[in-house]
C-alpha cells in the first residue's frame, strides 16, 4: 500500500459487462451509469464498456446501473481496476474482480516493469542476482573471477546507483552492496518491481538510475508450504522451505528459510584458481502479521550467515599463513558474513476512506563481514537504523492526492583495510511531500520533493517530477526528472578489484555522489495482423555533478578520486513483446549505452573516457511457451553482449598519460539459457541450462601463475568464468 506507486491515490477504472448467450459469455455494456453512491460524481461507460472515475471523499460505494439490469454496488478498497458483470433483473447478484497482471505496470506514472513469480520461475536458479535473466532493463555481471560477487547494471551504471529495497525497506546498500544480491533467495520472492529513472521521494534520496523493490512471500499467502530443492552440475545444492500459517482470522505467521552450499572444487579453465568460490549460506526470515479492517501490522527478524572461500584450488583457509606444497604460500580469498535485521511495518487503514492511510516502517540491522585477499585483510561492520512515517490522503477528491512524512536514517560504518581504520557515522533526518494530480488516469502528474539534513554533508534538497500522459487508449508517454544523492563505500563497491596486487590509493577525501536523471518512455499496445503486442521505447540520461571515480588504468594501482569535470550515462532501449498465439510469447529488446567519465587526476589531466566494463550494445531475445494450466513450460533466452573497454594490461606498457592511451577491447559474446518445467498438481519439476553456448573468458585472471606478483589481477572479468551449467530442481506446494 505504501509502495512507490500511487495505487491508492488513483481513481477507479474498469469495465462493465452484461451476460449474453444464456449467461455463458460476457459482452461489454456501453452507456451504463457509474457513480459514487450519494454523490453526483460519476461517468458513463464507453463503446467498449470501459470507464474511469476519480475517487470521492464522500463515498466509497461505487454503483453501476442500467435499465433492465440489477444495480450493482461495490465497496471499493484499494483496488483500482474492477470488472462489473451486470445481470438481468432476475438473476443473482455477483461481482467479479480481476487484478491486472502484465509485465509493465500500466497505471504507474513511473516507468515500472513487474517481474511476477511466474516469470521468476523461468529462471529457476537461485537468488535475486539471477532473477533478471529475461529482463531487458537490468543486467547482471560478475565483479571478478574469484569472489562470486555480482553487480546489477541499469541505464549503463552500476547497481549501486539503483535503490534496492526489500518490501520498501532499504536493503542492498552500504557494505551489503558486495554480496547483497545473493542474500535474497529466489523462492522467497513474490514479485519484483523495476522502476526506471528517478524514483518517488517517499523512498529516500539515494535512487539515481532507478529503484527495485522486492516483495517476499507473505505470511497470509495461500501457499501454506513451499519447498524447493535444486542441484547443478558443479555440485551447488540448495534447499528452500517457506511456511505460511494462519493462526486465526487476524494473525498469521510466515517462515522463509534457505540453505545452500558448493563444496566441489571446480577449475575448468585450468588456471589453478577455483572458477566458483566454495560457499555455504544459511538464511531465514520469521515474521508475524496482523490484519484487521483498520490496522495492518507486521514484524519479524532476518538472519544470515555466509562463508566463502576462493582462490587457488588447493588453498585451505585453516592453513592460510603457512607455505603451500612447493614452499610458497597459496593465494586465498575468504569472506565470512553475518547479518541480523529486525523490522516492523504498521499501517493504519481507513475502511471508509480507502485513499487515506498512515504507515510506519522501522528497521534495525547489523552487517558484519570479515574478509581477506591473500594476506590483505578487509573487515567491515555496519549498523543501521531506519524509520519512515508516511501519511497519504486526498485534497477534495482523488484527482488530487498527496503523500507526506518524515524519515530517519542512521548508518554507522567501521571498516579496516590492511592497517587503515575508517570510521563514519551518518545521521540523516528528513521530510518529504509528494503531490499527485490524476485526471482519470489520462494525465498524471507527480511532483515530490524532500529535504534531508545530513550530519556530514549538509542539507540535501531532492526534487523529483513524473508525468504520464495517455496519448490514446493504447499509447502512454512518461517523463521523469530528479536529483539523486548518495555516499559511496569505495571498498565494498569495488570489492572485486581488491582481488589483485593493486595498491589502493585515495587521492583525496571522497565527496558524496550527486546526479540528475532525465527520462522519457513510450509504451504502445498494438495488434500485428491479429497478434497482440507491446512496444516500449525509452531514453534516459544521468548527469553527475560528482561521481566516485575508480581508476584502474594504471597497472598496480586502484585510485579513488572525485569527478573533476563531467560524467554522464545515456541509455536508449527498444523492446517488443509479441503474442502470436495464446501462451506463446516473444520478446526482443535492444539497448544502447553511451557512458563516459572524466579521468586523469593522478597525472593532473582531465580526459573524457568511455566507462570501463560497460558494453555499448546488448540484444536480448526470449521465447516462452506454456501449455494450458502451465502443464509444460518452455523458455529460451539468448543475449548478445557487445564489445567493451577493459584495462590495458600489456606488461610492457608504461602508463604516462590518459591522452592517446592504447585501448584494450573485450570481444562480444552470446549467452544462451533454456528451461523446461513440468507442472503436476502439487509438484513442479524443472531442468535447465545457463550459458549453454559454453562461452568462457579465456584468461579471467591476469598473472594467475604468480598471485603474489606485481601483475596479479582477478578484477578484469567481462564474460562468464565458468562454462555451461545444467541444473535440475523440484518445487512442492501445498495450497490452502
Amino acid at each position: 500500500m505504501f509502495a512507490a506507486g500511487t495505487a491508492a491515490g488513483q481513481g477507479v477504472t474498469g469495465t462493465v459487462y452484461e451476460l449474453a448467450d444464456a449467461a455463458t459469455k460476457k459482452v461489454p455494456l456501453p452507456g451504463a451509469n457509474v457513480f459514487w453512491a450519494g454523490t453526483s460524481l460519476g461517468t458513463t461507460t464507453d463503446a467498449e464498456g470501459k470507464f474511469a472515475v476519480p475517487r470521492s471523499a464522500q463515498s466509497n460505494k461505487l454503483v453501476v446501473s442500467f435499465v433492465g439490469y440489477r444495480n450493482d454496488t461495490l465497496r471499493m478498497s484499494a483496488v483500482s481496476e474492477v470488472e462489473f458483470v451486470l445481470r438481468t433483473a432476475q438473476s443473482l447478484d455477483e461481482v467479479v474482480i480481476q487484478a491486472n497482471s502484465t509485465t509493465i505496470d500500466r497505471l504507474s506514472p513511473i516507468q515500472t516493469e513487474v517481474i511476477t513469480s511466474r516469470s521468476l520461475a523461468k529462471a529457476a536458479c537461485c537468488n535475486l542476482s539471477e532473477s533478471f535473466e529475461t529482463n531487458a532493463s537490468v543486467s547482471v555481471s560478475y565483479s571478478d573471477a574469484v569472489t562470486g560477487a555480482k553487480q546489477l547494471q541499469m541505464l549503463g551504471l552500476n547497481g549501486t546507483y539503483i535503490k534496492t529495497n526489500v518490501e520498501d525497506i532499504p536493503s542492498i546498500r552500504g557494505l551489503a552492496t558486495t554480496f547483497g544480491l545473493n542474500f535474497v533467495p529466489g523462492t522467497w520472492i513474490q514479485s519484483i518491481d523495476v522502476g526506471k529513472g528517478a524514483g518517488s521521494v517517499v523512498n529516500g534520496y539515494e535512487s539515481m538510475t532507478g529503484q527495485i523493490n522486492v516483495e517476499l512471500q507473505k505470511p497470509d499467502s495461500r501457499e501454506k508450504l513451499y519447498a524447493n530443492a535444486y542441484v547443478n552440475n558443479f555440485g551447488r545444492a540448495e534447499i528452500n522451505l517457506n511456511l505460511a500459517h494462519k493462526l486465526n482470522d487476524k494473525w498469521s505467521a510466515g517462515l522463509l528459510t534457505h540453505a545452500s552450499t558448493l563444496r566441489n572444487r571446480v577449475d575448468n579453465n585450468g588456471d589453478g584458481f577455483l572458477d566458483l568460490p566454495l560457499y555455504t549460506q544459511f538464511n531465514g526470515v520469521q515474521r508475524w502479521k496482523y490484519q484487521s479492517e483498520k490496522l495492518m501490522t507486521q514484524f519479524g527478524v532476518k538472519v544470515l550467515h555466509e562463508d566463502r572461500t576462493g582462490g587457488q584450488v588447493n588453498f585451505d583457509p585453516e592453513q592460510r599463513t603457512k607455505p603451500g606444497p612447493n614452499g610458497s604460500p597459496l593465494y586465498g580469498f575468504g569472506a565470512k558474513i553475518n547479518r541480523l535485521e529486525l523490522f516492523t511495518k504498521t499501517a493504519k487503514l481507513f475502511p471508509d476512506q480507502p485513499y487515506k492511510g498512515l504507515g510506519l516502517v522501522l528497521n534495525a540491522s547489523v552487517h558484519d563481514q570479515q574478509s581477506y585477499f591473500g594476506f590483505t585483510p578487509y573487515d567491515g561492520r555496519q549498523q543501521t537504523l531506519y524509520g519512515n512515517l508516511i501519511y497519504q490522503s486526498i485534497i477534495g477528491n482523488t484527482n488530487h492526492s498527496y503523500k507526506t512524512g518524515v524519515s530517519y536514517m542512521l548508518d554507522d560504518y567501521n571498516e579496516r583495510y590492511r592497517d587503515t581504520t575508517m570510521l563514519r557515522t551518518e545521521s540523516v533526518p528528513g521530510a518529504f511531500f509528494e503531490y499527485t494530480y490524476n485526471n482519470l488516469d489520462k494525465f498524471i502528474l507527480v511532483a515530490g520533493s524532500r529535504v534531508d539534513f545530513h550530519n556530514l554533508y549538509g542539507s540535501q534538497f531532492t526534487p523529483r517530477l513524473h508525468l504520464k500522459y495517455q496519448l490514446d487508449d493504447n499509447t502512454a508517454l512518461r517523463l521523469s526528472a530528479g536529483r539523486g544523492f548518495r555516499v559511496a563505500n569505495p571498498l565494498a563497491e569495488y570489492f572485486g578489484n581488491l582481488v589483485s596486487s593493486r595498491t589502493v590509493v585515495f587521492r583525496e577525501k571522497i565527496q558524496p555522489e550527486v546526479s540528475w536523471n532525465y527520462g522519457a518512455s513510450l509504451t504502445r499496445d498494438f495488434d500485428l495482423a491479429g497478434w497482440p503486442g507491446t512496444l516500449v521505447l525509452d531514453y534516459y540520461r544521468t548527469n553527475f555533478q560528482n561521481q566516485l571515480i575508480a581508476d584502474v588504468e594504471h597497472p598496480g594501482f586502484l585510485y579513488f578520486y572525485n569527478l573533476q569535470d563531467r560524467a554522464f550515462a545515456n541509455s536508449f532501449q527498444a523492446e517488443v513483446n509479441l503474442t502470436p498465439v495464446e501462451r506463446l510469447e516473444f520478446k526482443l529488446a535492444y539497448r544502447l549505452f553511451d557512458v563516459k567519465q572524466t579521468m586523469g587526476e593522478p597525472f593532473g589531466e582531465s580526459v573524457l573516457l568511455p566507462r570501463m566494463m560497460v558494453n555499448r550494445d546488448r540484444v536480448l531475445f526470449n521465447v516462452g511457451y506454456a501449455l494450458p494450466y502451465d502443464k509444460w513450460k518452455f523458455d529460451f533466452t539468448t543475449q548478445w553482449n557487445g564489445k567493451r573497454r577493459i584495462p590495458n594490461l600489456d606488461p610492457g606498457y608504461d602508463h604516462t598519460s590518459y591522452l592517446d592511451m592504447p585501448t584494450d577491447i573485450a570481444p562480444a559474446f552470446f549467452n544462451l539459457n533454456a528451461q523446461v518445467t513440468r507442472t503436476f498438481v502439487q509438484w513442479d519439476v524443472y531442468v535447465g541450462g545457463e550459458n549453454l553456448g559454453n562461452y568462457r573468458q579465456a584468461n579471467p585472471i591476469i598473472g594467475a601463475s604468480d598471485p603474489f606478483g606485481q601483475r596479479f589481477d582477478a578484477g578484469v572479468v567481462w564474460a562468464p568464468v565458468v562454462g555451461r551449467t545444467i541444473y535440475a530442481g523440484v518445487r512442492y506446494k501445498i495450497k490452502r
Partner: protein
Amino acid sequence: MKTTLFSILFAFTLSFGFAQTGDKEVKIKTSAICEMCKERLERNLGLSKGVKYANLDLTDKVMTIKYNPKKTNVASIKETIVNTGYDADEAVADQKAHDKLPDCCQKTAAPHSDM
C-alpha cells in the same frame, strides 16, 4: 545447440499445442461456491491425465471438461473432483478433502463473491 533447442521446442509445440481430434466433452454439476473453488477445480482437472480443457461456470456450478477418451474417462474425472473436495453429479465430495478447504469454499458457506 541452438538449433537442437529450437527443434525440441518446436516438436513439443506440435505434439501438445494443437488439440487432437477425437476429444470428448462432458458436463458435470459440482458443489463449487466461489472464484477460489473455480481456480482450484480447473487447475486440478487441467493438470490431470488426459484432460485438455476444464471450465467451471459459477452461475450454474457446471464444469465443462474436454478430454482424450484414450487416456481418461468420466469416472476418473469425477474422482478428481471428489478428491478435490467437491460433489460431482451424484458422487459426494470426499469428506476429508472437503474439510481441508478454506471456510469460504465449504458447502456450509453462504453464497458470496470474492471481495
